[in-house]
């Protein structure tokens, strides 16, 4: 399969108190079209730096990053969901979801139509007049997903998206992401702390080491997306193996 995302010898340095710090070093990664991948690693390993490069927010990197053959700045088919959802508290659910379309200068009619469609799909239409502060954690996460998907992205980047949700809501959201992935054929890269989540959602799993961030293990995971896998022995074995490589990193 042809790769959608290709990263070759990516290095990101930044300066803090006049000291050069290498956040990412020699990162190589390749994702075929429509793959879901998860990336796990200890905190402070530069996972979020990697996402900001992929989202086109950080241009100070060396090495090669290609999304469908384009640089992250040229490619506007990437959607980013941040840890704290990044919803604007002063906009209603409706306006938050519509914002991306508005910024892409779509005709007003089309904006409204697409917003309504995606809100209905995610069961959020009744909440459209609410502000983020009036929503539960799970609902907020849903809105953040709606806001990303309404732009019909090719690559969805998620930065520890479910870390502040309770266990049940978390599984519900994982199922939702899975369903959306199967329906839309998106390429997904999800950063997580949670090993079980990585195994459940990632067809490919990347393990990163800390300081400087580097990919130390890459494996294919046939169990991804299998609802029944959560209870299987293989699932737990894989999780245990990942846990030990994380310990060593």
């Amino acid at each position: 399969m042809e790769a959608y995302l290709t990263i070759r010898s990516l290095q990101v340095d930044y300066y803090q108190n006049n000291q050069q710090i290498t956040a990412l070093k020699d990162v190589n990664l390749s994702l075929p079209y429509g793959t879901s991948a998860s990336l796990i690693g200890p905190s402070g390993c530069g996972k979020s730096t990697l996402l900001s490069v992929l989202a086109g927010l950080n241009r100070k990197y060396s090495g090669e990053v290609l999304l469908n053959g384009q640089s992250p700045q040229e490619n506007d088919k990437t959607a980013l969901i941040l840890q704290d959802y990044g919803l604007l508290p002063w906009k209603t659910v409706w306006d938050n979801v519509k914002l991306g379309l508005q910024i892409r200068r779509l005709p007003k009619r089309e904006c409204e139509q697409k917003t309504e469609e995606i809100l209905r799909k995610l069961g959020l239409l009744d909440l459209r007049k609410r502000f983020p502060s009036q929503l539960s954690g799970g609902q907020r996460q849903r809105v953040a997903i709606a806001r990303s998907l309404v732009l019909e992205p090719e690559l969805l980047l998620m930065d520890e998206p479910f870390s502040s949700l309770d266990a049940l809501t978390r599984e519900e959201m994982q199922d939702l992401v899975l369903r959306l992935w199967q329906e839309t054929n998106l390429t997904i890269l999800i950063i997580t702390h949670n090993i079980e989540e990585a195994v459940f959602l990632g067809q490919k799993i990347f393990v990163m080491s800390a300081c400087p961030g580097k990919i130390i293990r890459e494996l294919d995971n046939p169990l991804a997306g299998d609802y029944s896998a959560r209870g299987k022995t293989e699932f737990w074995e894989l999780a245990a193996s990942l846990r030990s490589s994380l310990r060593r990193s």
Partner: protein
Amino acid sequence: MLSRLFRKLTSESLKTVITLVFLFVSWHLLALILQTPALPPPWDALKSLVAIFRSEIASHLGVSLYRVTVSLVIATVLAVPLGLFIGKNKAADRLSAPFIYLTYPIPKVVFLPIFLILLGIGNVSKIVLITLVVFYQILVTTRDAARNLAREYVLSVKSLRASEWEIYRHVYFPACLPAILTSMRLGLGTALAVLFLVETYATREGIGFFIMNSWSSLAYEKMFAGIIAMSLMGFALYLLLDFCEKVLCRWVNP
């Protein structure tokens, strides 16, 4: 939503009435104790206000309202964009910080004589002085609000490929609006105080002049009628800003 707003407003107006009654009763008691013509009982002041409002007070109040409103509008229009810009751009902040830091504490009213010489004794000198005072208050508050804005909001909108202007429009301005309106309310109080001061020098127009003029002719009922009129004007402007906040910043207390 409207009915809820209405109910909230009626309960608030009830509280306002009770507070007004309390104020007037205290005033009355104080007048009874002091027994001086310089503090007439509230009823006499109110009667005087009604009697001379059209003939004497209204025109002075109109001039004052014009001066204070224009000043507040100009100060806001200048200070808000500048404050957002400085708060957003670290380099601009570094450059302007010492300047603002050094000039902010200067009591701007001391420039009144200079402004009177340079800009004449008309409305311009008065408006410029009030604007200058209020400008600083709004500028500093807006800048600080913009400076402390959480980066995640900017990032999430930037990742939608928003332009600089769109980041101001969708993130900085709405995020800082509650702080801006608060600084406008505080600025209004200052503006009224400065208004009174500028209207007591070299002018024969304005409610400040009316109050001081009544005072020097020992017409204390008239003087208090002027004071009540000026307070009511301030109250009305305050209510207006309050209403703006309720409508524009619904997200703060939804």
